[in-house]
């Protein structure tokens, strides 16, 4: 029953995704230099490939490539020029109509160029105008398909799916140790056990929810405090947290579960390996329309564990990038026996 549900759900999302991508497909921006560079590169690579196929010996390869180029370069130049000029019109058309117009345009240009070359430069024609048109059509289709795939890879719908996959995961170490700590309280301090379980329930509700929308930072901080309550059950006086958040605008929006995993890291790598524990400092402030979050924890190089830490940071960084692109950044460094993580993101409010 449960399995069936998830399966249909997956198929459903997948179907929606496909449809969304198709609906939002757009022609590549033909006023962009990079796009033209790519067109040049792809077509010329295909020409090299064709020359390799046609030449029987190496000595034949370069003359053949030169011959092909003499025909192909004028076609590309003409095409790029006309596409550049026509782009404002093309971009107003429906995607598929635009594709059709471009294909027709290429057929006409290539046929014309071949006819022109044979007539006025008495070229030993590489091909008939019709054969040239067909080949130009195929190459155009390949280039357009490449741009379609490229766009798909960067589309918001795909980004959404990636965001879901990157969802913060619960560290099993934390789960089982917390349950163990709560168990130890049940006999002696049942009241504390109760509130600890309530905190855990709240925390896991958020961890397991679909967290796609930005949330006010005050909400994330409330969650962090609940998380730290649970951790202080087992770490007791070893865990000290200082909040420097007087300058923080509580309504600032951030992606959910950005702070909590960082605190979990700080506890795991900074507090647990220290026999006397230590202090985690969280400082949040705004500057120039940007929100700055600093988290630092004690650090001893000899306690450096595996790559778990890097994984979590990479994950958060990727989520920041998906939400804010270049406007957000995450940096981390170890300095003076402290490990610092600094996040910068645009200050947005509801």
């Amino acid at each position: 029953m449960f399995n069936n549900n998830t399966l249909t759900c997956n198929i459903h999302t997948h179907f929606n995704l496909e449809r969304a991508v198709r609906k939002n497909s757009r022609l590549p921006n033909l006023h962009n230099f990079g796009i033209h560079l790519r067109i040049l590169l792809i077509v010329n690579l295909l020409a090299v490939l064709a020359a390799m196929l046609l030449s029987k010996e190496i000595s034949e390869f370069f003359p053949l490539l030169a011959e092909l180029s003499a025909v192909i370069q004028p076609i590309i130049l003409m095409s790029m020029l006309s596409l550049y000029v026509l782009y404002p019109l093309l971009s107003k058309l429906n995607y598929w109509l635009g594709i059709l117009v471009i294909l027709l345009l290429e057929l006409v240009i290539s046929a014309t160029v071949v006819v022109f070359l044979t007539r006025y430069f008495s070229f030993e024609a590489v091909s008939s105008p019709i054969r040239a048109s067909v080949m130009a059509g195929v190459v155009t289709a390949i280039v357009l398909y490449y741009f379609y795939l490229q766009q798909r890879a960067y589309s918001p719908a795909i980004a959404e799916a990636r965001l879901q996959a990157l969802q913060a995961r619960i560290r099993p170490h934390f789960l089982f140790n917390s349950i163990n700590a709560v168990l130890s309280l049940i006999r002696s301090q049942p009241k504390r056990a109760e509130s600890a379980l309530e905190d855990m329930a709240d925390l896991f509700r958020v961890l397991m929810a679909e967290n796609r929308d930005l949330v006010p930072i005050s909400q994330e901080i409330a969650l962090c405090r609940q998380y730290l309550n649970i951790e202080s059950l087992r770490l007791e006086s070893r865990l000290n947290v200082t909040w420097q958040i007087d300058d923080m605008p509580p309504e600032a929006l951030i992606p959910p579960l950005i702070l909590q995993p960082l605190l979990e890291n700080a506890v795991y790598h900074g507090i647990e390996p220290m026999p006397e524990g230590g202090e985690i400092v969280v400082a949040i402030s705004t500057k120039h329309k940007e929100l700055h979050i600093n988290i630092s924890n004690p650090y001893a190089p000899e306690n450096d564990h595996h790559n778990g830490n890097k994984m979590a940071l990479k994950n958060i960084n990727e989520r920041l990038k998906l939400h804010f692109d270049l406007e957000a950044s995450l940096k981390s460094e170890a300095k003076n026996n402290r490990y610092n993580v600094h996040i910068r993101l645009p200050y947005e409010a509801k």
Partner: protein
Amino acid sequence: MSQILKILIADDEAPARNRLRDLLGDIENISIVAEAKNGKEALDFAAESKPDLMLLDIRMPLMDGLETAQHAQKLEPKPNIIFTTAYDVYAIKAFDLNAIDYLLKPIRLERLQTALDKAHALQPKQIEALRPLQKMRTHLSIHERGRVILVPINEIVYLRAELKYVTVRTVEREYLLEESLTNLETEFSEQFLRLHRNCLVASQYIAGYEKRADENNDAQWHALLKGVPETIAISRRQQHLVRQH
């Protein structure tokens, strides 16, 4: 009348120790002789209280349970070992493969009871299996006149191979260790340099280098060390290290 089983508990988290104490309280014929907050403390307490069994948490500050178990092999009498852990994929895999006793937290009374009944001392092969789970030891354990002395790695100036032993030199004194220099070199390659065929020197204790004439009047490089008067001759093959310095 069965004998009383003497147990030592080691876990850095008080609630975890409380929970174990609660559970052990429900089991007959046992007594908790010591509770430690880390591996180092566990070994200190064990030397005094001579437990039959050590319940060692894997992840502890200062010295983890895996290293503690290795040093505990030098205790007399050798205690049985059961590891406890909340979650540690690699360790659990290795425990299963090598029939090493362990308990998963949260621990159940019945599982604890069974584990106590069948607990046994670690075999040399099992100790070997634990080695790769750790990056490196934080201490060397030295058996001296019936006691186990722990020497922190970062207090060691150099390690020199003698006929049957390795001399461990700290600023204060020397110890004799029964291990091979080659193994020590592999394990501590990050902190120690092999300056001579028979000598590993901690790079943090190297104060500088000096050229001296040897008995044949040939030039010979020596490493000067912080905190100890003697110097270490550098073999020709290792002289490129001086240049890198």
